[in-house]
């Protein structure tokens, strides 16, 4: 590996990298990441259990959509009919939304619901493990040199993060190691997966979606959504638009 460093200033080093890096590091990392993603997608398909929808949940979605439509397009109906429908949905004693709002909270069930837990677990495992394994392997195999240069300037604080194995204090922070090139690939190949595998692919989920998403959102969701719809419907008044 040859590095020619003209000593103009300590920060402005302009490296010329061995072309062997390009052939044996740069491109293999892209290829490995890409195929790992494809394999992940197909494994996900294989392990996917057939979802048996629940009738009640489907009914709920229908009613929510109905409430929303009533709010948005209610101006087309005559006043009496609009009020009838609004009453049907929001009445204190018999209204559907009302009932759903006050239903005994199903929150406890969410955590102990076995099917949901296994789904989450599977999804998490499937995404985390390959990423960790391949990241570790790359870090171990391709350490000690820089792989590529990002086209924009970075501050010195990025150096310990992006230049893991290289301990050159004068090296421009834009030069990054292979591990960071790998992570860049993982996040960037999502759009390529969308092209290759179609839009609904399992290879494109990031850590953020997994962490933030499933657990708290689903717990609160049904009750909150119903409450929101109910409030919106209560305050909507009817103006005949025709």
């Amino acid at each position, binding site marked *: 590996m040859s590095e020619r460093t003209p000593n103009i200033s300590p920060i402005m080093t302009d490296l010329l990298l061995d072309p062997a890096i390009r052939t044996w590091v740069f491109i293999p990392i892209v290829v490995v990441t890409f195929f790992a993603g494809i394999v992940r997608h197909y494994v996900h398909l294989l392990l996917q259990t057939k979802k*048996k*929808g*629940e*009738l009640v949940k*489907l*009914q709920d979605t*229908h*009613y929510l*959509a*109905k409430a929303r*439509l*009533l709010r948005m*397009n*209610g*101006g*087309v*109906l*005559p006043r009496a*009919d609009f009020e009838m429908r609004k009453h049907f949905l929001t009445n204190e004693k018999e209204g559907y939304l009302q009932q759903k709002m006050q239903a005994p909270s199903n929150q406890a069930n969410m955590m102990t619901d076995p099917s949901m837990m296994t789904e989450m677990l599977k999804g998490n495992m499937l995404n985390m493990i390959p990423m960790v394994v391949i990241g570790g392997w790359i870090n171990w195999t391709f350490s000690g040199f820089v792989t590529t240069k990002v086209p924009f300037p970075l501050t010195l604080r990025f150096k310990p993060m992006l230049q893991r194995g290289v301990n050159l204090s004068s090296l421009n922070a834009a030069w990054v190691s292979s591990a960071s090139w790998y992570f860049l690939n993982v996040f960037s190949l999502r759009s390529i997966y969308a092209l290759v595998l179609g839009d609904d692919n399992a290879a494109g989920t990031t850590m953020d979606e997994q962490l933030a998403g499933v657990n708290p959102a689903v717990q609160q969701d049904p009750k909150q959504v119903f409450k929101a719809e109910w409030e919106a419907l209560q305050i909507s008044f009817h103006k*005949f638009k*025709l």
Partner: protein
Amino acid sequence: MVVETIDWTDLSFQEARQTLKKWRDDHARRSEEIVEIWEHVLSRYTSSLHDELWAVLEQVTIAAIDSARHDVALQCLQKLMTQFPSSSRVAKLQAMRLEALKNYDDAEALYNKLIKADETNPGFRKRKVAILIAKGEKLEAIRELNEYLEIFINDTEAWIELSELYLKEADYARAAFAFEDVLLSTPHSSLNLRRIAEIRYAQGGQDNLELAKAYYDKAIQLNPDDTRSLFGVVLVCNQLANKASPAKKKELIQTGTRALDKLASIYKKAGDNPKQDIHQRTVNALRTQLSQS
């Protein structure tokens, strides 16, 4: 205007495949043509269709059942059954074939089984309602459809069907109420606005007539060349003008006359319509009636 006739038996493989795909995506109900295309063109190229074959077979089966070509339907169904032995989609096709052969009890039993296996599929329940309608048991059908709609409250197609069932029973008030749910889903459809205007007009009574006029106006606004809505406006204005105050009457007559002028211009533009003079005379008669009311 000469209608272009296409000889469906003469298409190339690619054209046939594309046409069927387009009809699949549009849910077009061109059953006889689909069966023709299948018989004369595509049935010889089953190996070149690969995965698309199954979707095409499903489309052809439904088309064959619809055009009473039970031989073709049976053929395609058998191919599907060998490939997908325990599929609920194929079972639904089998049940549809039983329905077409008037074997309603077996069909209903099959649908019940399918519903128990998958409660959330709306298609099976709707086919049960279709059986009741085919048997002529309108009231039962209305009851079942109402139950279905309590769960699947947003199913526009079902609301339209319910509205039509009520119309057949001459229950205009309920038909209008049911059709309003359709309006909620498609508020800008001039077709649906016209339909509900017609139901309201048939109901009669001052409020309903005013509603009808409002709906007709909106329909014309969305589609200015709709002759049926234009005629509707004229008739409603006529009715309303009978009992309206003088100021209102003048306004109504103005609206009606405007609609009549539009109709006259449409008929004049149509040119070589053989019933041209009948239309013109109708328009003139309405005009005199309106001005005399």
